[in-house]
């Protein structure tokens, strides 16, 4: 995926909304007032960020556990490098899979490179999903680990900006990745 440069104005907007939209009748007006943008500019910028894929979605962000989906497993496989993309695409399409990434191995201890998250109401439901996933994607033969979550110490949206930054010139953060 191409990295899309995010400019200073967009960054200041993303910083202001990282905790969520205000629950007031004119949220975009309120957001704009904090960073010197008009309501229309806020709306247009959010639409543009969505269209470019910087924003994946906007709306209610739910917590699975509170909805009764108490079982959650991270499943990891060690796949040959040339198989990861094709397998990842299959796994990522399944309805019960909520995340699916290729990740860099952390060798020598951790050789896994395909990661997915499966949520269910009970552990048995997660394991049923996993069995179905392995059968349909052809993943039975590969080394894997199933890591059920136990305690949750923290879950919230990413806070990209540790301080509230009101001066856009301070937000000269280039989009970078660790690949």
């Amino acid at each position, binding site marked *: *995926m191409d990295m*899309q440069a995010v400019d200073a104005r967009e960054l200041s907007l993303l910083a202001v909304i990282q905790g969520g939209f205000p629950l007031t009748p004119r949220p975009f007006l309120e957001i704009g007032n904090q960073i010197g943008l008009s309501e229309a500019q806020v709306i247009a910028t959010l639409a543009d960020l969505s269209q470019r894929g910087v924003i*994946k*979605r*906007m709306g209610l962000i739910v*917590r699975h556990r*509170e909805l009764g989906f108490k079982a959650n497993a991270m499943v990891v496989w060690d796949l040959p490098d040339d198989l990861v993309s094709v397998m990842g695409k299959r796994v990522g399409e399944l309805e019960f899979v909520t995340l699916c990434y290729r990740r860099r191995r952390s060798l020598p201890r951790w050789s896994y490179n395909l990661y997915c998250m499966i949520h269910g109401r009970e552990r048995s439901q997660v394991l049923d999903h996993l069995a179905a996933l392995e059968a349909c994607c052809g993943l039975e033969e590969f080394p894997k680990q199933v890591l059920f979550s136990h305690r949750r*110490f923290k*879950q919230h949206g990413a*806070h990209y900006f540790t301080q509230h930054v009101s001066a856009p010139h301070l937000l000269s953060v280039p989009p970078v990745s660790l690949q």
Partner: protein
Amino acid sequence: MSVQDHHALLTTHAGKAPLSLTAMDWRLLNTFQKNFPLVAEPYAEMGRQLGISEQEVLQRLSSLQESGVVSRVGAVLRTGQIGVSTLAAVEVAPAELERVAAVVNSFAEVNHNYEREHALNLWFVVTACSEERLMSILAEIERQSGSPVYMMPMEENFHIDLGFPIDQQQDWI
């Protein structure tokens, strides 16, 4: 599953009072995990689509947020577009787990932190404004936990996030 059983499953973050979600709450959850209206009065627009008032939308969203079902109403960014992010894990002795988890949580840049059932038992995601800041956070966690921190940055995303499919739960209402 009966409605009562279903409600019994729903507990708040703190594990206190059971939640009772109404049919309208489920409709809000099912309809607006994506496609938040980009208009001047988005909550009024949501209300129009659901056949309720703006005030009711706002009240329901507030209470869903208070009870922890909804962490926020906002935007989900694509990982890797802004800042530098990685999944990381550390092996912690059970007696030390709460202490080390608190160290990890003390960084605002940590947004998920879970105990998982494995020898590598503490898993968290760090998203920082720079690679330098990210590495200094991991180094500090390593120093305070006394164990190596393993990092597994994302290299390719295979999942298009459309929100969590909870349509299946409509039959519980």
